[in-house]
């Protein structure tokens, strides 16, 4: 089976892209496919704990995020440089993810058969 690296690079409430990227991951998990996820750029805000999307009449991403491990999607990565640039600490994230450097991201890109960025 071909492995897929999904890159989430959209801010959580900037439209449907965050949700529709997670939907692809969850569908892959439902079919037992090897799917990994990497959050980078504005996408790291998707992981931030304690958000109040109800103020924007939006649904929390939390149910989708916590569904990832339940669907067998356990290779979860976040770009550490993107966190630093936004003054975010790993402790502030709502999901257990692995911090990766730029060179580790290059490795992720090289070791996955396919990459998809919405």
């Amino acid at each position: 089976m071909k492995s897929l690296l999904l890159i989430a690079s959209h801010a959580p409430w900037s439209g449907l892209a965050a949700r529709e990227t997670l939907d692809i991951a969850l569908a892959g998990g439902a079919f037992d496919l090897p799917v990994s996820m990497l959050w980078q750029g504005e996408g790291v805000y998707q992981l931030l704990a304690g958000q109040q999307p109800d103020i924007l009449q939006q649904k929390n991403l939390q149910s989708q995020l916590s569904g990832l491990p339940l669907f067998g999607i356990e290779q979860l990565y976040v770009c550490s440089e993107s966190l630093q640039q936004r003054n975010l600490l790993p402790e502030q994230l709502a999901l257990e993810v692995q911090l990766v450097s730029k060179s580790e991201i290059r490795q992720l890109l090289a070791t996955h058969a396919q990459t998809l960025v919405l």
Partner: protein
Amino acid sequence: MQFTLILSSSPQDPASRRALCFARAVIAAGHQLQRIFFYQDAVHLASRLLVVPQDEQDLAAQWQEFVRENRLDAVVCIAAALRRGVLDEAEARRYEKDADNLAAGFELSGLGQLHEAMQSANRVVHFKGDA
């Protein structure tokens, strides 16, 4: 070579035109287009209800004609389509809407179809918009 194309760009986005040019080139070169998957705003390309000014190109109509003429496997993500008001007859009935607009030759289905096509193709090419 077996190609799968993924479109996520809107009908107004140049990426949707590039995708059509690419798809035509794939067929012209003797390769197979095993599936075209329409996601995000690209679901609008499958709508029969787009109207463009007479002196502009109707890209949705061109895509629909291309799919029909080549009898392609054109799958539109059902969740993305419903959110954006692209419905076939069955979904219009299910959600009690008074019209449907999915063009002939297109099928509403789930993201499993995207994964299946990505697994089985030799080449997957994604045309994404500016969003």
